[in-house]
Each structure stands twice: as C-alpha cells, then as structure tokens.
C-alpha cells in the first residue's frame, strides 16, 4: 500500500509525519520525493548503498546541418528554442524532453542527448547485519541549479516500487507499506508524487494559512479519485473553519498531533518522535492502523 503524505504549506510537518509513519510501519519503503530538499534522511540516517543518476533528454543541434528553417521553434510548446540570425538558441531548463524538435527537423540536425538533473539514493536503516533490512530508504535529489523536479520524482517512485518488489513475493509487496514524502505546494511534482498512491494523507496546520493551503491540496486526491484523510499537526485550539469543512465534506481527521515545545526540540535534534515519545508512538500506530484498515475496507 502506497501512502502519499502531502501538505500545501511548507513547514507543516509533512516529513515529520512521513518518517515517523514509515518507522512505525517497520517493513516499509520510505520514498523522499521532496527532491529540492530531501530531509527525511536527516531523521532516518540511512546507509546509502547505491546512487543512480537521473537523466533527461535535451536536444543537441548540429549548427552545420541546421538550415534555420524554424520548424523546431514553432513546434516547441514550451518555447525552449529560439532562432536568431539563422542560428538556434536552446534553453535546456525550459525543455520538457518531448523530443518533438528532433522529429520535425527536416534535415536531421537535432539529436537528443542525456543531461543529468539529479540522482536517486538507495539505502536502508539498520546495522547491515540483518538478513533483510526492514526499512528501505529511497531519496530523490535534484541537482543544484536544475529546475524541473518531476523527472527526479518519477525516478524516485520507480526505484521505490522496484525495491518493494525486490526480494518479496508479489502479494507480500502489495501489503508492504510505502510512504511517499511529497514536495510542498500543489504543483506538477506533487501531482506526480500523489498520482500512483493508494492513499493520500494530508497534513494540515490549524491556522488560516494552513486551511487555505489545505483547500488547494485537497483537490489533488479528490480529482485523482484517491482516498484521503487529514492529520492535524501542531494542534491546540481547534481551527473552526477547518473542523467544519472536514465535517461537511466527510474528510476524516485521523490524528491530531499536539503542539508541544519538546516535540520541536526532538525534531531539531534529528530524533524520531516515535522513538523518543510514547504518546507519539501510540498515535502513529493508531494512525497507520486507521489508514491500512480503512484502505482495505
């Protein structure tokens, strides 16, 4: 079962919920798709065993063959190509790697070449002496200066899916919990992270800002037809509009993580709350059970 963890607003506690949920699930795969700042590893401290480069294809233009006909420029929907004084200019960071320019070029001047935009790190939590590591960690890392997170998110999800089938029977793998730590916001890379999941957990802060962002993010699982529920983080005084909205639209609130200063301290030290705090350990066990049981029912 793949559980995607989202929050519209950054700093709501997405990684906090995702890592603690993964640790609670034990036999699980944790995929960090927040590739611009993959912070899950700060808490999980995985032993990284492999690193796979992530490439995209970008056009390479043979300026000798190019006749300056502009077919590629007019074809590119994202305007990644320009033609000035008969010479092509390429903007690889705008390119969406569709390959269309190389297809429409009448003189075969455009070929596609790989460009590394990031990497996927595979690792596990444990001493390495276990016969089979229980918690596997897949971390997507977008290279510095690269702008499109989606290819790295895709590669992270693919690597994670392969890992959950790696040495397990198919039926075991389908039961194995995968926790997908999604990027913040509600953009393309979030959609990509949520799309293949079986359940979407929305972390929400009980504030006006948190509620506003929740309303945006909530559209994603709804439109994708993925079951979803809310976890309120930094809970204190109930935020009435959020409570009313969830009640009215039948969005279950599965857990309320209290606002506690000592939790902030635990977090700032890179410690897992479920290891350091009994109340939190119980809370996450109940949360996981509610998701898994609810997902099967």
């Amino acid at each position: 079962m793949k559980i995607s963890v989202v929050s519209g607003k950054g700093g709501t506690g997405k990684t906090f919920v995702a890592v603690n949920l993964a640790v609670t699930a034990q036999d699980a795969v944790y995929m960090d798709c927040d590739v611009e700042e993959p912070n899950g590893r700060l808490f999980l401290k995985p032993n990284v065993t492999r690193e796979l480069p992530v490439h995209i294809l970008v056009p390479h233009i043979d300026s000798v063959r190019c006749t300056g006909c502009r077919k590629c420029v007019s074809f590119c929907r994202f305007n990644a190509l320009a033609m000035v004084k008969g010479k092509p200019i390429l903007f690889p960071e705008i390119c969406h790697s569709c390959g269309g320019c190389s297809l429409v070029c009448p003189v075969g001047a455009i070929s596609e070449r790989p460009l590394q935009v990031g990497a996927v790190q595979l690792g596990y939590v444990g001493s390495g002496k276990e016969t089979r590591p229980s918690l596997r960690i897949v971390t997507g890392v977008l290279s510095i200066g690269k702008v499109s997170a989606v290819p790295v998110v895709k590669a992270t999800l693919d690597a994670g899916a392969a890992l959950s089938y790696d040495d397990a029977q198919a039926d075991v793998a389908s039961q194995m919990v995968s926790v997908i730590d999604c990027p913040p916001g509600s953009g393309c890379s979030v959609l990509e992270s949520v799309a293949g999941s079986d359940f979407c957990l929305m972390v929400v802060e009980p504030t006006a800002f948190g509620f506003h962002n929740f309303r945006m993010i909530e559209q994603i699982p709804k439109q994708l037809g993925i079951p979803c529920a809310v976890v309120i983080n930094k809970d204190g005084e109930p935020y009435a509009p959020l409570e009313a909205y969830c009640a009215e639209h039948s969005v279950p609130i599965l857990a309320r993580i209290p606002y506690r200063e000592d939790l902030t301290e635990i977090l700032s030290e890179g410690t897992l709350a479920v290891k350091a705090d009994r109340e939190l350990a119980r809370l996450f066990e109940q949360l996981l059970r509610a998701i898994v049981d609810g997902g099967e029912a």
Partner: protein
Amino acid sequence: MTIAIPVDEGGKTVCVSFGRAPYFLFHDDGTGNTRVLANPAADSPGGAGVKAAQFVADAGADSLIAFRCGQNAAQVFSASNVAIYRAEGVSAEENLKALEAGRLPVLATFHAGFHGAV
C-alpha cells in the same frame, strides 16, 4: 531604428511584464510610424520571455524599453543585438522621448523568472 515597448491594453502605458505583456508597441524613429501588435507569447504555457523576445527580434527591433526582462529573453536580445533600456515612468510616449534624448539607462540586471508570481 525601431524601438519596441511592451504595453498594456490601449497601447499607451508600459506594461510591467515583458514576456506576458498583451501588446508590443513598435516605433520607427525614422518614419515616425508607430504600430501596436498583439504579443503572441502573452498566454504561453511556458517560456513566454523567449517567445516574446523572438517576436520582438523578428519584428526588426533595434532597441527595447521595458521595466524588467528575464535572463532567457536577454540572451535572445544579446544574440540579435537588441539594446535594452530601463523604462522610467508609465507613459510609452514619454519613454520614447527620453530614449531619444539619451536619458534612459541601460537595463543591466535580468531576473531569473517570476513563473506565475508578480
């Protein structure tokens, strides 16, 4: 010499955006002719700056007056030898006069894109 200015609806005021301005004003200071043409990049899903710069360069502009300009568009202008000046005040006409009088500064800093933000 042809001078291009991104302009708002009505064609009289300089638009704050370059790539997504609804129109471009082209002024030929030799003939005194002024044309206002729709910007084909205005509702582009991405790369509006590149497309708008291509449009301005293709229209034969030698100079551009704008409040701001992105790095990608600046690269297109640099390749096509279009000089970029920083607009002062909102009136397109006043800016043309100021350029003629040599009072407009060269725009030398280019942003990395706003991508939906303003």
